[in-house]
């Protein structure tokens, strides 16, 4: 991509992503060093969005592997289409084919189901590979992934070794529920994603909702920042801020101070547990609103 670090933030803004400066540098570095990028941070800070922005920036296909406990290589790499294989065996048996030829036939390309990792490796153009929430997968899977990231090749016993045609740009995210291995961490560039500062969050709101008033966007961002400092069970993320902004805009609100009752009533967009909703009483929301200029 571009050899110009300074231009990245603008180009990201062009695709609707408002990056913090450190992240822009990290994305630039991914190109220079050809390393995967590991993103850590709380849920809702927009880690997945980084991968989407990267794919938009390079006009590259986004391939996503969502990790979960018990995720194994079959689900991540490839699987055979058993139903089709069984039908083919039956059909060929009836036609009097010999078993060796049947075997060679059913373990071939048309019966192969690509899963995200194999798919990523077989792209003609380098895709963005998002490995989401790696901390949910088991350590064994992490070790396997490390192997894959080292040489970008996959061996399917029946087909042989498949070498990547273009090296994917890899983004790995983790919510920190489990500590990742040092080996994986060391292979990656690292960026810790925090909740955006009010100024940046306001710009995110404006980028997504061009109709909204700039001063309202800043008020919303500041109010959300204040709410995040309260003792809550689930801290609202950027997606929640967007929902809230949409709700306020839908009510025709131009200034938060204009209608504190509506502000309080719409807080359900931000607070996703019963406990949090009860904790943020009208008094609390008025107090927080008082601090938002």
């Amino acid at each position: 991509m571009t050899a110009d670090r300074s231009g990245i933030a603008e180009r990201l803004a062009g695709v609707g992503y408002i990056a913090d400066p450190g992240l822009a540098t990290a994305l630039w570095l991914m190109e220079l060093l050809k390393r995967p990028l590991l993103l850590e941070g709380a849920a809702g800070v927009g880690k997945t969005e980084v991968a989407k922005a990267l794919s938009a920036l390079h006009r590259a296909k986004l391939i996503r592997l969502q990790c979960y406990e018990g995720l194994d290589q079959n689900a991540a790499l490839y699987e055979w289409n058993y139903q089709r294989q069984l039908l083919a065996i039956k059909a060929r048996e009836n036609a009097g084919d010999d078993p060796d030829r049947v075997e060679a036939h059913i373990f071939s390309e048309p019966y192969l189901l690509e899963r995200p990792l194999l798919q990523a490796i077989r792209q003609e153009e380098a895709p963005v590979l998002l490995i989401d929430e790696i901390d949910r997968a088991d350590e064994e899977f992490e070790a396997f992934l490390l192997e894959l990231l080292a040489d970008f090749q996959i061996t399917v016993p029946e087909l042989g070794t498949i070498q990547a045609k273009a090296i994917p740009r890899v983004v790995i995210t983790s919510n920190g529920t489990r500590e990742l291995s040092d080996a994986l961490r060391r292979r990656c560039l690292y960026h810790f994603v925090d909740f955006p500062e009010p100024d940046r969050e306001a710009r995110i709101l404006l980028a997504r909702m061009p109709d909204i008033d700039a001063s309202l966007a800043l008020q919303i961002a500041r109010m959300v920042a204040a709410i995040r400092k309260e003792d809550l069970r689930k801290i609202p993320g950027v997606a929640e801020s967007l929902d809230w902004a949409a709700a306020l805009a839908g009510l025709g609100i131009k200034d938060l101070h204009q209608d504190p009752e509506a502000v309080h009533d719409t807080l359900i967009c931000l607070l996703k547990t019963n406990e949090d909703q009860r904790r943020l009483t009208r008094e609390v929301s008025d107090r927080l609103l008082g601090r938002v200029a």
Partner: protein
Amino acid sequence: MTPIGASARARLAAFVRSLRANGFATGLGETQDALKVMTSELALRPVYLREAFKALFCSRQQDWQRFDEIFDAFWLGRGMKTAVRASGARPDAARAERRSGFPGFGDKAGSTTAVADRDALDESADLPGEGRSRGASSAEGLSQTDLRHIAEPDALDQAMELAERLARAMRDRLTRRDRRHRRGRRIDMRRTIRASIGHGGTPVDLVRRRRKEKPLRLVMLLDVSGSMSLYSTAFVRFMRGLVERAQDAEAYVFHTRLVHISEALRESDPVRAVERLSLMAQGWSGGTRIGESLASFNRFHAARVLNSRSVVIILSDGYDTGEPGALAQEMAALRKRARRIVWLNPMMGWKDYAPVAGGMQAALPYVDLFAPAHNLASLAALEPYLAKL
């Protein structure tokens, strides 16, 4: 592209060394990539260079939070403490940029490497003032009955025997990785299909899989501070039994500092084992800094020793002279790496004991099993627990 001079290379190497001294896990790969970064356009602006090095050298959140400070201390010649005091929480990048050119290269001010040094921290940890007086053990009115019982030679032999049984209980545990097995529970479709080809697609022979078993790893952290001293002998013996018999076990002791003793415990000659232990254990029976000891375990040992098959056993009465908040933080970090945390507290076997000590209170939310360990029976009760994991 500008070629990198020998002095710049040396400065970079020194920077990497100071990162390592601060517990960063950086290797040759990062250093070579850092050289690449230094020849790229990022090097033209110090702020970019800092951001790039940060992405490159950090690999976890703790690194991330400390990096700017270390970077400034090294390249901008600012002492860490003063950097913090002068600018509040974060050193300001703007000031860094005002300095012309490449920060720290051939710059005399940059050569004062004021990087917090681990030994210095350790020394301050050894300050007098804690110990039994504040450890409160004497105030609790230590009962001797259960201890006599455990210190008898017979009982010590029993401790070894018990350790052996526990080691057996831990040996196998199930993992998610499958293995082919005649009587497994799940059908392996890939292999079943292959086997059915000869039968015209009728799956006559079902190929099954079964979960593979892997041993648990046991990591023991024994408190040998003053308040625990009466128990230490028997527990060390117990740990020795485990390290010897279990396939996978590591042992540490701590008081104001953490000491790795697995190697010494593996010493076949008992006299030499005791010598090595007593050399390591200078300062035993002093005060307790559980939080700091756990911090040094987390920082310097955890990555190597802990995985999802690790059970951490902490043997301590929870009388901590450190900050309970710090202990809670380290327990939370430990919690993320280990499969289970077991806290054995000798005082729990006493009548009317309640875990009111500040350290114990802070640690409890992160403990999976909180159990007594004042006699052998209480240790034996661990066996069914470990067997279930």
